């Protein structure tokens, strides 16, 4: 149920009106007027003085864990976490149980997302049956289903067999699909626990060499070129990978790449205390890699930021490193981390943030109605963000079912104040709203 909403004095960061405060009038789920000194009787007024208005963020890489792992997260709890982070759309990775490799499962996920009502949940389909890497899943059926799947991934696993990867890249051209590869050569990373380098040598943890990521990306961009397909690279983490993408784009290869907020900020030095909150795949890398991915995001080599939000229960992290699960939750902290790593360092402006966290992810995922400019006629999916406060990230900032965040007690700037999803307020005045009928 959408209200009539009047947002006053927001700093809109779309291309046309960078920096000047403006009013936005929202009705029937759409932006109906943009200007100065607007008014409308009966409208709910939001004072957005000092707040930056961004199009609702779109996460191309989220793990919602439902169906099958509801102890860690559900589509409802994950949607709430997303809204709290300023997101209005999330792409749900298929490593659920059962795996989302059929039209039935992806339609179920879509329905659960609609019932939850906080964000648009767009299912991602698996590339291969059961994500086993042996046979293609029914990609066409998933594309034609009500879930309109366009992004396919075996994330968690690499599509390692070069022939399967080639076929998948070719096949999805029929419906403008894209394969999102988790680049990790399994033979080079057997038993791997952290980045391979000086720290792993000292800590006695099996290394995950950068070349295991880079060699797959190099192969895949050449395959994509050969068959004329789009390719998307998930959670890129090394300087070498940035170089390969840059080379590929110069050649005109249709490749896009994402980087996680944690790879923009954290390094492998954090592993020294064996605190499993920092255990993630791909692993935290060196300072040089952090610098390289920051520059890559700034110069457009890396197209988007995607959270790889990966919830895990407490017992999967409160144990010895080797036994711990890989992954960090990231929806609620993403925008704040990007501000610290990219905006406050002068590498990105807020226009760029809108591009890399909203517009481009929506475009790659072929998701209509999201990442659209804040102009008349467009859907009212947006977030109002206050960049000024600096305070520690705490448990109360987490709204999902799991607390495996690497930022707890760490000072981060900024705060999401309001989020609107198609005209429905999901976050009001910094607090999540309880939305009517939930599944």
């Amino acid at each position, binding site marked *: 149920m959408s209200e009539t909403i009047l947002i006053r004095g927001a700093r809109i960061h779309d291309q046309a009106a960078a920096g000047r405060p403006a009013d936005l009038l929202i009705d029937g789920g759409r932006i109906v007027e943009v200007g100065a000194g607007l008014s409308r009787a009966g409208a709910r007024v939001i004072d957005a003085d000092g707040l930056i208005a961004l199009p609702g963020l779109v996460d191309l890489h989220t793990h919602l864990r439902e169906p099958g792992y509801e102890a860690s997260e559900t589509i409802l709890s994950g949607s709430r976490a997303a809204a709290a982070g300023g997101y209005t759309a999330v792409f749900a990775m298929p490593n659920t149980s059962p795996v989302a490799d059929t039209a039935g499962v992806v339609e179920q996920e879509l329905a659960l997302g609609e019932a939850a009502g906080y964000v648009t949940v767009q299912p991602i389909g698996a590339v291969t049956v059961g994500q086993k890497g042996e046979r293609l899943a029914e990609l066409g059926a998933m594309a034609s289903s009500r879930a309109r799947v366009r992004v396919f991934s075996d994330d968690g696993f690499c599509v390692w067999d070069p022939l399967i990867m080639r076929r998948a890249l070719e096949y999805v051209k029929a419906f403008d699909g894209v394969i999102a590869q988790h680049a990790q050569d399994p033979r080079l990373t057997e038993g791997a626990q952290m980045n391979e380098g000086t720290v792993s*040598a000292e*800590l*006695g943890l099996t290394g995950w060499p950068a070349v295991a990521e880079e060699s797959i990306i190099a192969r895949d961009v050449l395959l994509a070129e050969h068959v004329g397909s789009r390719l998307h690279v998930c959670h890129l983490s090394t300087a070498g990978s940035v170089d390969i993408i840059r080379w590929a784009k110069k050649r005109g290869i249709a490749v896009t790449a994402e980087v996680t907020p944690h790879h923009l900020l954290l390094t492998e030095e954090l592993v020294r*205390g*064996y605190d499993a909150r920092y255990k993630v795949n791909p692993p935290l890398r060196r300072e040089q890699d952090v610098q390289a991915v920051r520059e890559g995001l700034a110069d457009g080599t890396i197209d988007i930021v995607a959270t790889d939000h990966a919830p895990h229960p407490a*017992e999967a992290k409160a144990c*010895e*490193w*080797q036994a711990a699960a890989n992954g960090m939750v990231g929806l609620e902290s993403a925008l704040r981390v990007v501000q610290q790593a990219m905006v406050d360092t002068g590498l990105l402006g807020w226009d760029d943030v809108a591009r890399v966290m909203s517009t481009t992810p929506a475009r790659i995922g072929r998701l209509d109605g999201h990442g659209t400019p804040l102009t008349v006629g467009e859907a009212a999916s947006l977030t109002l963000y206050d960049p000024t406060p600096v305070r520690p990230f705490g448990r109360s900032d987490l709204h999902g079912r799991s607390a495996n965040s690497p930022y707890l007690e760490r000072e981060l700037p900024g705060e999401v104040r309001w989020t609107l999803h198609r005209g429905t307020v999901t976050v009001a005045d910094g607090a999540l709203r309880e939305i009517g009928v939930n599944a």
Partner: protein
Amino acid sequence: MRHLLDTRTLTRDDALRILDVAEDMADTQRREVKKLPTLRGKTVVNLFFEDSTRTRISFEAAAKRLSADVINFSAKGSSVSKGESLQDTAQTLQAMGADAVVIRHGASGAPRTLATSGWITAGVVNAGDGTHEHPTQALLDAFTIRKRFFGADSRGRDLAGLRVTIVGDVLHSRVARSNVWLLTTLGAAVTLVAPPTLVPQDVSAWPVRIRYDLDEAIADEPDALMMLRIQAERMNAAYFPTEREYSRRWGLDAARLGRLSADSIVMHPGPMNRGLEISADAADSPRSTVLEQVTNGVSVRMAALYLLLAGERTRAGEDGR
């Protein structure tokens, strides 16, 4: 000393203190009554998740000679094999009154996780964690070297001026890592010899010299040559082609033994693969310190337990983790 987790963070003063107290402990082992009443009433738990009879018995002997009570917990057939977590296992033992937990675990970092988690208040001694560290082994190795080279004048001395060469699977060896840090802290010059596949990818920050050729390393006249146990299964993961080739290129055979300088000693942490990394001649020669290492292990572990348990226990954070 609140915990003994590694030699990487062990200062020179602390290391010498352990070695010097071990001298006192060793002296008492020559008496008729080998027992001391010092840790009477304290309980030491041996929490061994990996099989290891020798190390466990050594810690048990050390604790008993200080009159502590010993509880042995081995993972096989225990609640752990039924999936009990490290946290629950440790807290159960503490609830039974453990003052110190000696832990051997297959996961690197497990002792540190145990010591810093807040699950238990007992002192933690690392008896070997994954491929990370085995601090008491390095301490007994240093004690052995010191004793052989300085005899009755050992007390208070470090190992400055001595050259120690370690040969074997450095990549997978916690004994190698602990020795690299401790020997360097004590002033020795360390050389590592291994096939390139068994050296970690990036050891540029390590204070060691790396050699791939054992004969060249022996020509450098090391004072101590420490042979590490090689696991034959490593050849199935392509670290080296055959046992035969490994033994020929990196084994301490009679010929290489003969080329060692007169005062050099041969060391091995055990258990030995006679004929693979070390020949019978070498293992049984007068240069070999293998049995002394075992004896010294008890003294060093007595020193470690004494320093951990005898004084008032500091609160967490007072002297670092």
